[in-house]
């Protein structure tokens, strides 16, 4: 007898026919009809109309029929909640059936019917089943608690099911224990704070005992649960490891990987000097290698995990290079992953073998794989210096094959080799240039252009080559355009006489005819640099390049540590934290490796890595997101990353600032006129700004049209410390409103979303006036500029130093902290001009001990300039006197919290370069004086 007939296509009136059959008296006919209904359901037909008729078949002693009806119920109950109630009685009755299989079936099915009314009736049967004498019923009931919790968490708590479930961890039957652990783990995930899975040495012991006895799946549940436990010291960690290691010989790869996860995690706590540590390392390698003889899909999961393990603990597999050699018949996803791991394991000892393999792979069929192989050769050259020469010659051989994508890929990697080993392999440039015409991919074109620009002085016809690219400038991708622009400027700086025309051409193409702001900006910078100071231009454009790193595509250490905690799971396959692909709160609890603490040692603070340990092993003690944002006070915040306004800008910094701040406002300016193409004017700023003071600001690379002085953006939070998020910023005050101008750059490999910001209490009550608005998710390598309005109504706490501001920024990855010093002048209010009489009275009134004296040196400004400069930052001049050839300015300012500061500024004219300003400040709160002085200095010197 076959069932396939049920799948035959349906005619009209089928539902009607089925209805009749369902109500037939003959059992066989009924069963046939239900089968047809299920078949229709499977292929996606709507058979919900038959609900009452199918439910009528439920009362039967035929188990097969019952199961079919239950299946139907699970599918349709939600759409027919009222009628589903009809089934409740049967369920309740079945839960009392003498046959344990039927009891279990009833409780299992009932949990799958997600209808509120039904769940109420479920409680009593479930309670009984949890204490059933038959383990089969108990293990089913354990999972049912998790089902019920998913429907109605409150009900589960109210009914005390959680406690019953906890009791099941001590059950005599290992499978009941395993299912209880699975259910509790799942429930605990949605209550990160609750101490539901109260793991302690006793319960761990029970789990480890059950581990030896339960099914392969149960072992996985238990191991995954164990991985969440943090042993209290290294001794406990070791004893758990000892009991988990036998699992490495299990035939089920998932058991092996989960055991590896527990071991990798607990190993963190073991001292490297321990004999056991070495033993454990040795024990880990063989099972990992064995995973590679599993089915391809599992191999893939294993390889993705090995990729993480190799990054975390390279020593485990360093001798196992050969097993990662690609087999001709491996599926492509296995091949690509193996290649990745081969590169990570490449070292001086095995490089010859690796290179021979890679060369072999470069002739394979799959384009992606070949490209990756070629790229891998380049990476070997960079990683193992001794092999560089061989790699380059291999790459040249490959270029000779003239296979288009091989050539292009080779050129991209040769560019990196040039960067790593300057002045060593330039002899190959000629060969590269031969292939110029065949390059049709942006990355390869850009790499080639970079090479031509970088070595312009050695390539006789560099100008011709670059000119040939210039013809189709607007059809090129941005990457190529930017590279071409830079390369031609380099060429110009190296051979100014012959290439003037070329450089003008590219500058005008980039600035006038392009819609791309990046390109325009870069064009303007070069243009301005070249016109104002060619020497500086040379220093900027031809600056010494920083070394490129040996390892590429490394996962950031914090993310890596987190992923190690997720070995075996999807997160480890995607190399992304669960929050990146799991919706809602479930399963997104941040996990971190346990800190290495011997029994006596105390936990180290986040700033000090354990001596001798590489930074990757730094313990991660950032608490979980939930309780964090509220309370920053008890956190051990490190020293401020950088003081923003006082830094003097170096040449290189200058270039960066131009990009970041100045030009943006320039281009948006209303009076903007594009610089004429023919003659580059001496002062590019001239046609742009709207006043003398603006011009001054602009030439120093800082553009504000009105309002206080704005310091260039400084990096507040380097990407290294924030899992790839880099934050730089500055503070501005414009027409009475303070804002924090932030620039967020995503230097991680994953998209960032869900940004939020919060300040700790601070001296002046600065607080965000609006939430941090990042509209679109921030993709890798993207930068976004945000102006965050601030107010001063937040809660106040005196900070040390006074202008210290501690900030927490959250995104989907984590919460990060940094602190910064804000310039005090952002707090100077617009109505800070004091009446003359008032000024005199106040000056006298404030005791002399509150007066502070400062000197501002090297400020070649006269009284007018000083006065106007200060006024724009809300420091108001009330009176001016000339005493014995010295200009005296009397000034006042008011802070947002109402504190007045009075100033007497003495200007000694004379030799402009030696002007010294004497500043006397009087204030009722003398502690602000120092910061007011710093504000003066900053404003006047910029």
């Amino acid at each position: 007898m076959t069932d396939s007939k049920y799948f035959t296509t349906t005619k009209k009136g089928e539902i009607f026919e089925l209805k009749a059959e369902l109500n037939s008296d003959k059992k066989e006919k009924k069963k046939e009809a239900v089968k047809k209904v299920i078949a229709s359901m499977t292929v996606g037909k709507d058979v919900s109309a038959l609900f009452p008729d199918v439910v009528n078949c439920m009362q039967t002693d035929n188990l097969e029929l019952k199961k079919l009806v239950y299946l139907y119920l699970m599918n349709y109950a939600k759409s027919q909640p009222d009628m589903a109630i009809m089934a409740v009685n049967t369920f309740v009755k079945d839960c009392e059936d003498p046959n344990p299989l039927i009891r279990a079936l009833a409780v299992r099915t009932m949990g799958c019917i997600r209808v509120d009314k039904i769940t109420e009736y479920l409680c009593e049967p479930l309670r009984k089943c949890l204490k059933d004498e038959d383990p089969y019923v108990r293990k089913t009931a354990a999972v049912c608690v998790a089902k019920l919790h998913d429907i109605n968490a409150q009900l589960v708590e109210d009914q005390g099911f959680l406690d019953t479930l906890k009791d099941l961890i001590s059950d005599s039957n290992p499978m009941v224990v395993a299912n209880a652990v699975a259910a509790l783990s799942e429930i605990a995930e949605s209550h990160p704070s609750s101490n539901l899975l109260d793991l302690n040495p006793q319960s761990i012991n029970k789990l480890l005992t059950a581990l030896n006895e339960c099914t392969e799946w149960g072992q996985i549940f238990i191991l995954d649960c164990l991985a969440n436990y943090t042993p209290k010291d290294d001794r406990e960690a070791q004893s758990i490891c000892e009991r988990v290691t036998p699992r490495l010989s299990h035939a089920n790869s998932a058991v092996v990987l989960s055991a590896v996860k527990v071991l990798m995690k607990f190993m963190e706590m073991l001292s490297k000097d321990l004999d056991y540590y070495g033993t454990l390392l040795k024990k880990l390698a063989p099972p990992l290698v064995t995973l590679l003889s599993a089915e391809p899909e599992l191999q893939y999961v294993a390889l993705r995990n090995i990729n993480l393990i190799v990054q975390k603990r390279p020593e485990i597999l360093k001798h196992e290079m050969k097993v990662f050699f690609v087999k001709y018949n491996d599926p492509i996803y296995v091949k690509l992953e193996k290649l990745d791991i081969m590169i990570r394991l490449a070292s001086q000892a095995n490089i010859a073998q690796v290179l021979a393999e890679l060369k072999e792979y470069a002739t394979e069929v799959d384009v992606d794989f070949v490209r990756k192989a070629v790229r891998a050769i380049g990476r070997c050259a960079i990683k193992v210096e001794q092999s560089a020469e061989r790699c380059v010659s291999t790459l040249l051989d490959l270029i000779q094959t003239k296979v288009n994508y091989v050539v292009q890929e080779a050129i991209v990697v040769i560019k990196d080799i040039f960067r790593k080993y300057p002045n060593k392999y330039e002899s190959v440039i000629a060969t590269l240039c031969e292939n110029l015409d065949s390059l049709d991919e942006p990355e390869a074109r850009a790499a080639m252009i970079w090479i031509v620009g970088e070595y312009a002085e050695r390539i006789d016809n560099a100008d011709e080559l670059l000119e040939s690219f210039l013809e189709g400038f607007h059809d090129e991708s941005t990457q190529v355009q930017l590279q071409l622009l830079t390369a031609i400027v380099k060429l110009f700086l190296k051979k100014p006489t012959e290439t003037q025309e070329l450089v003008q051409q590219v500058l005008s193409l980039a600035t006038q005819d392009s819609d791309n702001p990046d390109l325009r900006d870069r064009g303007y910078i070069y243009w301005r640099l070249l016109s104002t100071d060619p020497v500086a231009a040379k220093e900027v454009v031809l600056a010494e390049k920083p070394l490129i790193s040996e390892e590429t595509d490394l996962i950031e250490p914090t993310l890596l540590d987190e992923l190690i905690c997720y070995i075996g799971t999807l997160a480890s396959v995607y190399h992304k934290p669960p929050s990146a692909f799991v919706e809602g709160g479930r399963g997104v609890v941040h996990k971190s490796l346990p800190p290495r603490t011997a029994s006596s040692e105390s936990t180290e603070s986040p700033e000090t890595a354990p001596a001798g340990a590489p930074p990757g092993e730094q313990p991660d003690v950032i608490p979980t997101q939930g309780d964090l944002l509220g309370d920053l006070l008890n956190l051990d915040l490190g020293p401020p990353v950088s003081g923003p306004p006082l830094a003097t800008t170096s040449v290189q910094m200058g270039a960066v600032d131009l990009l970041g701040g100045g030009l943006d406002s320039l281009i948006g300016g209303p009076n903007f006129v594009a610089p004429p193409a023919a003659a580059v004017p001496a002062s590019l700023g001239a046609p742009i700004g709207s006043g003398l003071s603006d011009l001054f600001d602009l030439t120093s690379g800082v553009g504000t049209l009105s309002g206080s002085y704005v310091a260039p953006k400084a990096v507040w939070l380097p990407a290294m410390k924030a899992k790839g998020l880099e934050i730089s910023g500055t503070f501005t005050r414009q027409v009475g409103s303070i804002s924090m101008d932030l620039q967020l750059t995503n230097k991680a490999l994953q998209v960032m979303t869900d940004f939020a910001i919060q300040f700790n209490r601070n001296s002046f009550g600065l607080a965000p006036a609006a939430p941090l608005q990042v509209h679109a998710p921030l993709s890798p390598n993207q930068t976004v500029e945000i102006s965050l309005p601030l107010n001063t109504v937040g809660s106040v706490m005196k900070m040390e130093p006074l202008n210290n501001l501690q900030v927490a920024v959250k995104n989907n990855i984590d919460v990060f902290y940094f602190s910064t010093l804000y310039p005090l002048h952002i707090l100077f209010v617009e109505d800070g001009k004091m009446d003359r009489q008032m000024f005199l009275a106040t000056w006298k009134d404030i005791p002399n001990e509150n007066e502070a004296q400062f000197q501002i040196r090297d400020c070649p400004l006269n009284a007018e300039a000083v006065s106007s400069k200060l006024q724009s930052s809300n420091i108001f001049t009330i009176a001016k006197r000339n005493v014995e050839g010295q200009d005296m300015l009397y000034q006042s300012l008011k802070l947002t919290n109402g504190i007045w500061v009075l100033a007497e500024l003495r200007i000694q004219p004379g030799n402009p370069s030696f002007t010294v300003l004497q500043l006397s400040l009087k204030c009722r709160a003398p502690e602000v004086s120092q910061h007011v002085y710093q504000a003066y200095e900053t404003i006047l010197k910029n």
Partner: protein
Amino acid sequence: MIGGLFIYNHKGEVLISRVYRDDIGSQIAGSALFSSSRPFLEERRNAVDAFRVNVIHARQQVRSPVTNIARTSFFHVKRSNIWLAAVTKQNVNAAMVFEFLYKMCDVMAAYFGKISEENIKNNFVLIYELLDEILDFGYPQNSETGALKTFITQQGIKSQTKEEQSQITSQVTGQIGWRREGIKYRRNELFLDVLESVNLLMSPQGQVLSAHVSGRVVMKSYLSGMPECKFGMNDKIVIEKQGKGTADETSKSGKQSIAIDDCTFHQCVRLSKFDSERSISFIPPDGEFELMRYRTTKDIILPFRVIPLVREVGRTKLEVKVVIKSNFKPSLLAQKIEVRIPTPLNTSGVQVICMKGKAKYKASENAIVWKIKRMAGMKESQISAEIELLPTNDKKKWARPPISMNFEVPFAPSGLKVRYLKVFEPKLNYSDHDVIKWVRYIGRSGIYETRC
């Protein structure tokens, strides 16, 4: 955990769909495909469709067995032209999901044979019943066929006595879930097969780039009661350990012992005992099962050596000469020998001469296939071929895939030897001596390639 499980045919039509969790399916790409008259059902259909559209119907070759579509992850395996897909929205244990899918295939195969569209349609009620049993709320449950067959029968419910019922449940949940009590055989018999596949990658110059043996010990047991078994082989670690006591034995057997890189065991083997004493003890399932898998890389006997010689004569001709040498005892015979010599895509004609066996150019496979039925040890044979090529303007050189080989030999290339398999059954009165035991060694080629 697993949110749902779908089985599709090669066209992407759903044969089986079982949803365990509601979270899968909402807002998945491709929702426009279905009319919106059934919003609730449609949610589920969407997950089904997303996989069809993005994976089964994708023109490209499958780039990953795990696909993420709109925050939903799909795990799939393919058996002939049937796709099995597990769907989830959570951070599940990925290794477990694949292991489960394989297990699911095993269970289905044990019930109705080959996994084909026809068989699945014929047994869909059974499959639903199985899915209900072995996966609860997405958590895999006992999936040992032996246990399942005791109560999922498709014969309708047999009137079971109370004892029978509780025996079933205790077996399904018990410590020895893979064996039921009360098995009786008139003749106690067991068969051990040591099945090895030897893998090789050799350079054209004859240098071994990588070689390993992956072996399996498959046991077929027809034993009464609950027998305790102990399995012993010439494992270097065990032999050396014992050797400490009796120096004689070391010198006698030391040479024959092999170094096992790693091994994994069927769940019936007591792993903690293996870990501490390296002894393999277990109560076997009834019938056939895989006792262990192992891997060795040292001192492998490579049964064949392939010596290739490829010469390009101008742009339109290739000359190929391949010599194979058998490298084992002359008294043994290798069987089913097949050498596959790849030819370029632009081959127009091939002339082959071989000393032994039959050789044929198979244009559809782009290879010359040379078959030899039998070959004794320490022999040599040769094939030469002239390949005519069509002139092409394809710049890319021919990739020269490796020459691969298939064979079967009656010994274990790793050198593994079964030393003993002892059976104890304390309750029934048969002893180890009464059990009839058979041991067989088969070495097969895995991926046995020589680059040319």
